[in-house]
C-alpha cells in the first residue's frame, strides 16, 4: 500500500529525513517511536504533502501512485489521512459543513454520490458515538476552543468519517487520560480491516497495549535505526533511547 524508498527531506535548508525506507501493507499497523526532534512529524507532514518540506531524494508510492506528485487534497482523496499532532483551529468554519464538504470531495473522487445534509447527519451521529463526542461539537468552528483531548478525538472522528486507506496518527495519544486514550484506540480498532493500514507515531508504549502493532520502528536523526515487533516498544519503555543513541554514535564512529 505504501512504499517509501530512501526518502530525504529538508526544511529551511536543513536535512531532517536522511534516507527512510518503509513498507506498509494492507491490514498492517506500524508504530513509529523515537526521541523528540528525530523527524517523526516531518515524515508524517511529507507524506501528507506539506509544502514547507522539500523532498530532496527518494520515492514514495501509495496505492500504486507516485504520492509525491500529488497535491495534499489529492492524497487525501486517494485515501491518505493524517491525524495532526497539533490540530489547527479554524474560526468561522463550521465543523459540520467542513467535514461534509471533505467527505463529499472524497466520495466524488471515488465515484460515489455526494451525501445530503440529512444523510450526513445520520453518518456523523454514529461516528460521534464511537468517539463519545456530543453533537453540539458539529455546530462549533473547526477545533476552535476545543480542549487538547477534544481536538484529538475530533481527529479520530474525522478519520472514522472519511474512512481512509492509510491513516497516519501523529501522537494522537499524547496528553490523553486513560479514558480518552481508550476512545482513540477503540476508534482505530473499529476501523481496522484487512484493506487498510495505520502508521501510529507515539512516544508511549501504553497506546500499543490497545492498538497492537505488527511492527515497531525507531526513528532517530532522520533514519529508521531499528525495527521489530511489539516487544521492541516494551524494551524502549524499560530502557529508553540511550542504548539506541549509543549504538548509532558507535556505528557513526566506525
Amino acid at each position, binding site marked *: 500500500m505504501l512504499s517509501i524508498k530512501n526518502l530525504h527531506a529538508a526544511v529551511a535548508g536543513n536535512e531532517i529525513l536522511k534516507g527512510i525506507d518503509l513498507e506498509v501493507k494492507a491490514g498492517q499497523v506500524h508504530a513509529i517511536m523515537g526521541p523528540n526532534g528525530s523527524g517523526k512529524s516531518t515524515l508524517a507532514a511529507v507524506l501528507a504533502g506539506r509544502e514547507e518540506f522539500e523532498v530532496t531524494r527518494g520515492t514514495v508510492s501509495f496505492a500504486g501512485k507516485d504520492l509525491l506528485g500529488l497535491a495534499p487534497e489529492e492524497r487525501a482523496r486517494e485515501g491518505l489521512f493524517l491525524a*495532526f499532532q497539533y490540530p489547527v483551529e479554524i474560526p468561522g468554519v463550521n465543523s459540520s459543513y*467542513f467535514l461534509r464538504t471533505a467527505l463529499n470531495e472524497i466520495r466524488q473522487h471515488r465515484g460515489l454520490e455526494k451525501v445530503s445534509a440529512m444523510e450526513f447527519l445520520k453518518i456523523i451521529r454514529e461516528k460521534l458515538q464511537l468517539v463519545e463526542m456530543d453533537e453540539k461539537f458539529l455546530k462549533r468552528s473547526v477545533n476552535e476552543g476545543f480542549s487538547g483531548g477534544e481536538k484529538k478525538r475530533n481527529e479520530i472522528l474525522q478519520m472514522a468519517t472519511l474512512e481512509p486507506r492509510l491513516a497516519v496518527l501523529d501522537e494522537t495519544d499524547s496528553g490523553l487520560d486513560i479514558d480518552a486514550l481508550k476512545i482513540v484506540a477503540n476508534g482505530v480498532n473499529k476501523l481496522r480491516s484487512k484493506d487498510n493500514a495505520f502508521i501510529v507515531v507515539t512516544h508511549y508504549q501504553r497506546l500499543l497495549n490497545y492498538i497492537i502493532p505488527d511492527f515497531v520502528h525507531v526513528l532517530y536523526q532522520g533514519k529508521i535505526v531499528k525495527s521489530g515487533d511489539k516487544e521492541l516498544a516494551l524494551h524502549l519503555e524499560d530502557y529508553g533511547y540511550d542504548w539506541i543513541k549509543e549504538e548509532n554514535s558507535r556505528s557513526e564512529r566506525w
Partner: protein
Amino acid sequence: MVTTGSKKKIVGLKGGEMKRQLSTEREWYSQLFTEFERSLNGESKTPLHAIRKEAIDWFSDHGFPTMRQEEWRFTNVSAIGEIDFKTGIPKVEDIAPTDLSPYVINNDYNRLVFVDGCFFAGLSRTENLPDGVTVKSLQEAMLTDQEVIQKNLTKHAKIDENGFVALNTAFFKDGAFIHVSKNSLYEQPIHLIYLMTEKSKESVVFPRNLIVAEQNSQISFIENYISLSDTLYFMNPVTEVVAGENAVVHHYKIQQDSLNAFHTSLMQVYQERSSNYTSHNYAFGGSIVRNDIKTMLDGEGIECTLNGLYLARGTQLIDNHSVIEHAKPHCNSRELYKGILDNQARAVFSGKIQVFPDAQKTDAIQSNQNLILSEEATVDTKPQLEIYADDVKCTHGGTVGQINKDGIFYLRARGISADMAKNLMIQAFAGEVTDRLKGESLKEHIVTFVLSQLADGHLKIMHLP
C-alpha cells in the same frame, strides 16, 4: 472669493498673510451654487436657505480636505476635486423593474427609490405602515412634516465637519425621510435605494436622509447605493439619525457603487438616554470611498454597535472613519470592522472613542481586522482612544494578516481543494461580521453577494451583476 478665471489652480492671498491654494473645486461649486439659487423660487427666504449659504461659504473657504489634515492623512481625495461634476442629471424616463430586481432584497420590504438622485414614486412602495410610521421623500416631508424637519434637519451633521458635508448641505434636494412617533414600532427594514444610471456620467448627487425615531420607538432601514453601469459619478450622501429615549434603530448601509465612482458620506447619529443604535456598514464599490460615521451618546444607559465589512480590490481605496462620543455615564459601545483586500487596493480605518469627563463606567470595545490576499494591498489602521474619565473600560486593537497557511493545509489534508479552502477561510473571516445581520433575507442577500465576489481565494475584479 475668486469665482471666475482659469480652471487651473490659482494662488490667492487671504487675510493679507496666509498664502492659500484656492483650488478650482471651490470656484466650481460656488458657481454651481449661484445657478442653483437662481433655480429656487421662494425657498431663498427660508431658514434652510440661510444654512445652505453658510455651507457654500464654508466650502468656498475650505474646499475639500487635504492630506495635511490629520483625519485625511491616508486618504487623498484630490481626484474628486479635479473633475467638474455637474448637478441635474437629465431625468430618466423609466427604469425597467428587471433592472431593479437583482437589488430587491425582499419584495415585502417597503422602499423608496431614487434614480440619479431623483425620487421615483413609481418604483417605491410604502404600504401597510403602522400608524406613527412615516416614510416619504425628504422633499415631500419638507412640506408636510415641518416640525420634525425644523428640529432636526442639518442640526446634527455640522457644516464644518468637512467639505463634503458642507457641499451636501448647500445642494441637497431630496433623500429619505423616516419618522417614527413615540411608542410606534416597525420591524421590517425600509429599503432606501439610490440607483445610478449611465446618464450620471461626471455628475454629483447629494442624497440627504433624515431618520428620527422618537421615544420608545423602533425602526430599521437600509441605505443601498447601486449603479447600473461602471460610470464615473460622485455620490455624496449625508444621513442624520436621531434615536430618542429608549428607541431602537437598526441602520444598514450597503454601498455598491460603480467601481469608478467616488463615494463620500457622513452618517451622523444622535442618541438619547437608553437608546440602542446598531450600524451595519458594508462597503463594496467605488474607486475612492470615505465613510464618516459619528455617534453622540448623549444620555445614560445607551448601547451603540458599529459593524463594518469592506471588500477592496483593483486600485480601490476604502476609508472608514468612526467617532463614538461617550458623553454620559454607563454607556456601552461595540465596534467591529473587518476588511478584505486584494490587488493594489488600500484601506484606511480610524476609530476614535472619546470618553468625556462625565462618562464614568463607559464600556467600549473596538476592533479592526484586515485580511490581505495580495502582496501589494495596504492598510492603515488607527484606533484612537481619548479618555477623560477614570473609571472606564476601553479596549481596541487592529490587525492586518494573510490567510492562515496552517488552516489551509489542514483543510486540504482532508480533501478540500486549495481554492475552496481559501474561499472558506475568507468566508469565515467575513462571517464574523455578516453573522451579526438581523433578518434572514437581508443576511442571505449580503452573504450571497460576498460569496459571489470570491474566486480562487481572491476577489473577482468585476462585481456588477
